[in-house]
């Protein structure tokens, strides 16, 4: 039987991979994919806590409802983020983060 620690470590490693992707990749669309990966890693730990912290013999469904809300918000975030990327591409003809240095000090 896998323990709660197993699931938490798996979710932590997935989060770390996403974090590494955000910091190392230069294509804005891959950075965005890595962000989605980090969000799902948080979902995995929430679902694991819901399964291991039983409430009167049931899973803790409050956590699963929270995951449901996170997925909804993530879907809205993806729609807006991709629209921003498209209008950015129209304005600057690039999706490379290093070409976007207007705010650089």
């Amino acid at each position, binding site marked *: *039987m*896998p*323990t*709660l*620690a197993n*699931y*938490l*470590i*798996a979710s*932590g490693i*997935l*989060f770390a*991979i996403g*974090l*590494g*992707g955000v*910091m*190392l*990749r*230069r*294509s804005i*669309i*891959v950075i965005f*994919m*890595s962000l*989605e*990966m980090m969000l*799902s890693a948080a979902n*995995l730990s929430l*679902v*694991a806590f819901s*399964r*291991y912290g*039983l409430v*009167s*013999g*049931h*899973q803790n*469904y*409050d956590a*699963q*409802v929270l*995951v*449901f*809300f996170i*997925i*909804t*918000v*993530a*879907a*809205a975030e*993806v*729609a*807006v983020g*991709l*629209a921003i990327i*498209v*209008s950015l*591409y129209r304005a600057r003809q690039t999706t490379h983060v*290093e070409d976007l240095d207007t705010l650089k000090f």
Partner: protein
Amino acid sequence: MLLAAFWLFATLMLAFGTCVVLLRDPVSCAMSLVLSFISLAALFITLDATFIGVIQVLVYAGAVMVLFLFIIMLLDLRSEKSRRLNFGATIGGLLVVAAFLSILTGVVYSSPALSKALPPLGASPISDVKLVGMTLFHSFPLPFEVVGVLLLSATVGVVVLSRKSLR
């Protein structure tokens, strides 16, 4: 059985997640992310969260990734050109990731409460989906409405953003 499923799907999830970071072609990245999300949905199902697993496949692996692939196609993105690595940023990034992982393993393995075995579920005549729905509509009706408004405003925002000229 459950342990084997956990290791199989956790390994697949992390391997495809690594592919997302390492591959150069954005389409390959998106396809690896789809497979990673499907393995994650399988992990949800090993945790008896059937509804969340199905939603993960439908929303993430389905809708969201189709949107990503559509944008990649629309912008006609090629493979990322291999530019010189920014060494400061690379080393800093790897340090942050390593620090995060070491703190996490330290915390997780120092707590004996986190290494207990899987508690058995009580027998329930009501299905998983029904229980999620009951919790959602009995305990969280207001957040549900707020999320509906959020989705509507996101849709309107996307339409405004994607017009030809922003005024």
